[in-house]
């Protein structure tokens, strides 16, 4: 293709930038169309992504195992083979126990919730550094709907953002677009936990200027928004401050670290 002359090229580049800015302004809060396209794209790459995730998890496990072997070899060369076997057995047992514990916890959470839920496996984390999300291997065909709360045994993970037939993207609590109604479990102060686009960091704005919140307090869902069931762990308060308007706000760490979650529960809702 022949390159357009200098001035024409500049005009084309400016037009391109203006067009992109226009598209951004039109879609800046995310639209049904952007979500549909994202869902379709996610569905298209889901098999490859799931396979890659499982392969990477397998390799990561093996690397950890090999590292432990090398370490053992250095320390006790004479007992290397025996130790390796013993460690392998222990690792396998530990993995089995850990998996068993996770599944039991998920099962207990499911029974405690007393509402229909879909269990899903995490198969991906966000591809962009400014967008905190994860991908699960259940979608619309399994009863997952946009906006549905997503929970783990430790507490709230986030809510469903885009839904494809067999996968869904979950907007994490730390996402800059996320907000959850919370209550201080100790004092009962009500507020809203807002994402900060930083992994494992939330800003909590309390509604009352006299909210008696302290560092270390547990925050649970208030149930006021009607999206999340009441009383689920959301975060722990790290520091409390009072803004110029007199309102109390707090920095908090989410109760669930999404990088350590392998199984989540999606609450079945009627849909948007």
């Amino acid at each position, binding site marked *: 293709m022949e390159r357009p002359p200098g001035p024409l090229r500049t005009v084309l580049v400016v037009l391109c*930038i203006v067009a*992109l*800015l*226009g*598209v*951004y302004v039109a*879609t*800046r*809060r*995310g639209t049904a169309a*952007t*979500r549909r*396209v*994202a*869902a379709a*794209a*996610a569905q298209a*790459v889901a098999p*490859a*992504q*799931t396979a*890659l*995730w499982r392969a*990477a*998890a397998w*390799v*990561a496990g093996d690397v950890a195992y090999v590292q432990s072997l090398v370490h053992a070899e250095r320390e006790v060369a004479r007992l290397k083979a025996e130790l390796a076997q013993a460690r392998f057995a222990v690792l396998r047992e530990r993995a089995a126990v850990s998996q068993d514990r996770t599944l039991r916890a998920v099962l207990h959470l499911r029974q405690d919730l007393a509402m229909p839920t879909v269990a899903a496996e995490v*198969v*991906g*984390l*966000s*591809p*962009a*550094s*400014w*967008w905190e*999300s994860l*991908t699960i291997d259940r979608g619309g065909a399994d009863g997952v709907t946009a906006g549905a709360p997503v929970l783990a045994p430790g507490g709230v993970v986030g809510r469903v*953002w*885009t839904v494809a037939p067999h996968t869904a*993207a979950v907007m994490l609590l730390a996402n*800059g*677009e996320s*907000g959850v109604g919370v209550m201080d479990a100790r004092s009962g102060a009500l507020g809203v936990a*807002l*994402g*900060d*686009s*930083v*992994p*494992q*960091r939330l*800003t909590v704005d309390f509604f009352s200027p006299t909210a008696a919140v302290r560092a270390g307090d547990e925050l649970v869902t208030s149930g006021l928004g009607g999206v999340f069931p009441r009383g689920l762990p959301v975060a722990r308060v790290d520091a409390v401050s009072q803004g110029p308007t007199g309102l109390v706000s707090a920095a908090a760490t989410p109760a669930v670290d999404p*990088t350590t979650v392998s199984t989540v529960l999606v609450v079945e809702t009627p849909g948007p």
Partner: protein
Amino acid sequence: MRIAVYAAMGLVALLLQAAVVPHALVFGQGPALPILPVVAVGLLYGTSEGAWAGGVIGALTDLFLGGAWGVGTLLYMATGYACGRLAGARGGGRLLVAVAAAGVAAAVVRAAGIAALRAGGGHVSLSALVPSPAYVAYTAVLAPFVLALFDGRATGRRRRRERAARL
């Protein structure tokens, strides 16, 4: 053709970012993989190709997020163009430029993405604009490897062309 190549590169980078990076975090942070091919193409082939690669990979990023469209496209395009301005360094100097460019690009793209989120009504604090050192360093450290990968392919193509011309 080159758009298809850049799209394939972007797709691979996004898949690796979503499925493999979470298993290889350092201090809880992963690198910004999709930015690396943009930096490499810019440094190796100049402003125009850098902007093309950035535009295509950025558009793919926008598409997969389901949020605002155009942010990733513009940011990555600008990154590719800016890296293209740095093209021309050779040898060890180029590797250092790649490290610096990837680190700066990762930090700037993240900050600009968050700023766009904030401008769109997201409630993000200004401190979120500052990236963690682990994230920047991790991205920067990987840059020479991606550059070498692309450079190797380019050198191989050039040699094949030269051999064909001699014959």
